[in-house]
């Protein structure tokens, strides 16, 4: 009975929106890359870079929004590298992506250890404070869940609208969608396929890095090793679940996060009967199940993972 009651608690949904926020940013980022035809398995490492870069900048006195910009730029830099290796050089997107994740993660850890050689507890920063939206936050349940979050969470929702608008209502969005389906058609329009794809990967990677920065600058107030903890891989599953559409991806991220928040509460309730690890496994297993469920209807961008070389068929 109590297990069902939890679902109607505002605090569950507030937690769900909070947990969803980094996933929304990173899922949008991966979606942009894949829509342009490039799978970006660098996501896990790029989120780690973003988490560190933003936090480190703020620790050194930058204000929070500057930190976000720095995180985004750091992510975009790794995106450029991934784009350069996979687009003009046409290297395996699987292997390169794993390589980018290894490189980005290890560079971050190196930088962290260099800056803090032997600290037992990592230094903390003052993070984004919750911002209540007047009037709207007074709505029962919904107000608590949606309108008492940090500015970064609101930004995540705005980002979904902006990305959806750009993808479906602007010429550049049309070009990005087309280059993921039929790059030759884009070439015929006089648009450079190579730069368009690299650009999309860089922008997508910036989103991923902001998702990472959410962890250190809004969810927690410090940087830890392994703090991304597979969130990047989950976002790749969320892109498939969302059929490469921003709106559906948002829905997927919120459902996933609601489930994650629910299992956390269930742990306290049923922890006596089941080991806590079972609950922690559920989000990963749910991601796999979602992939299987969507596989039949998955509308992959046709040119996903296929390198484009001018004049080659």
């Amino acid at each position, binding site marked *: 009975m109590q297990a069902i009651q939890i679902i109607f608690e505002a605090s569950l949904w507030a937690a769900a929106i909070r947990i969803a926020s980094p996933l929304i940013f990173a899922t949008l980022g991966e979606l942009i890359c894949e829509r342009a035809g490039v799978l970006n*398995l660098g996501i896990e490492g790029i989120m780690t870079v973003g988490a560190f870069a933003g936090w480190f900048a703020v620790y050194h006195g930058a204000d929070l929004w500057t930190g976000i910009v720095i995180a985004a730029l750091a992510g975009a830099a790794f995106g450029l590298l991934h784009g350069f*290796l996979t687009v*003009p*050089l*046409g*290297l*395996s997107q*699987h*292997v*390169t992506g*794993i*390589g*980018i994740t*290894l*490189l980005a*993660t*290890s*560079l971050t*850890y*190196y930088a962290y*250890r*260099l800056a803090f*050689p032997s600290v037992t507890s990592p230094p903390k920063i003052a993070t984004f404070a919750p911002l209540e939206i007047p009037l709207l936050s007074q709505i029962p349940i919904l107000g608590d869940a949606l309108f008492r979050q940090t500015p970064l969470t609101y930004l995540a929702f705005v980002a979904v609208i902006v990305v959806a608008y750009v993808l479906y209502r602007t010429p550049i969005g049309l070009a990005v969608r087309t280059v993921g389906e039929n790059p030759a058609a884009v070439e015929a329009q006089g648009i450079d396929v190579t730069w368009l794809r690299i650009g999309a990967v860089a922008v997508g990677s910036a989103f991923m890095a902001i998702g990472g920065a959410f962890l250190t600058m809004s969810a927690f107030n410090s940087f830890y090793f392994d703090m991304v*903890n*597979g969130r990047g*891989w*989950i976002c*790749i*599953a969320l892109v*498939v679940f969302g059929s490469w559409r921003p709106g559906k991806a948002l829905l997927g991220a919120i459902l996933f996060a609601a489930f994650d928040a629910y299992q956390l509460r269930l742990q306290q309730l049923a922890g006596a009967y089941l*080991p806590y*690890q*079972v609950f*922690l*496994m559920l989000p*990963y*297993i749910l*991601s*796999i199940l979602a*992939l*299987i469920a969507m*596989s*039949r209807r*998955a509308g992959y961008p046709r040119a996903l993972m296929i390198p484009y*070389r*001018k004049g080659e068929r």
Partner: protein
Amino acid sequence: MRLEPRIEAASSIWVVAPLVAVAASFVVAAVLALAGGASPLSVFAAVIKGAAGTQFAFLETLTRATPLIFTGLAAAVAFRAKLWNIGGEAQLYAGAIMTIVLGTGALPLPAPVLIPMIMAAAMLAGALLLLGPTFLKTRFGVDEVVTTLLLNFVMVLFVSMLLDGALKDPMGLGWPQSKKVIEAAQLPKLIHGKRLHLGFVIAIGAALIVWFINARTTFGYEMRAVGFNPRAARFAGIPVNRVMAKTALLSGGLAALAGVSEVAGLKGNLTLDLSPGFGYTGIVVAMLAVLHPVGVIAAAIFVAAMFVGADAMSRTVGVPNYIANVMVATALLTMVTAMLFTRFRLKLR
């Protein structure tokens, strides 16, 4: 500037590419050393001394290379058939679990019987673990990269659960660790009083067997054909899905042996920090070896040398040992870039 396909594959690059990759990783390391306020030469000297300067150091490098040979082979076998097994970490732990289940006294058998039994059971566990994602790939078209990656996280939690419950050592003072394996289940040390153990020899043997399978059997040919062009392989009458499944069994089994070797040869028991990412590093090892099984041995020793050397270096010079991880990742990316030039040449226009 553009890339032009070569008519004939350039064979010299197979030798040049790994050298370029190693050189690039040292260049990046030099930059990082400078950023860390140390002279690159003193860092390199300390890394090399720490990895091969003394007999102890060199044996330590070979000990560290042992699990990497297994996970490297696992990746090399799978990648050859374009089966992207990124789940080496999970399969390693599957092997480690089987070692503890069978090797802590449940089977009172002599070593010559017990050790092969453990290895067989572990390989089966690892193989079945990879068969799931492979089935999802061939049957439903679910990307195996994501599923194998996600299973790594599930598996580590599963191990954590076992170490809190069924496999917890009652004498472990509450630490999440398993009982030690019995003496008959231990892989003997190669040199008395040193850490290098039989697992290293088994790893070399495994590499030779994989080389034989690749070069001299129909299955080896089929794996290559499926990896090269699955459509063409299907038209040629190769049962693509079945070859994928067999590849998965071999790959998962090899990665599981890394778990057996670490538990039965080195650590003695199962803990949550058994593998500092051996599964992921195996991918780098396989790529550095251009997926060649004998090359995997050399690549694993090189990568192990970087890690062992960097550990020693960080203690003396004080530059963080994560420099080794950066070098290894750089080597991976440079290697795949350099290999591109076996098929293409750069035309300056």
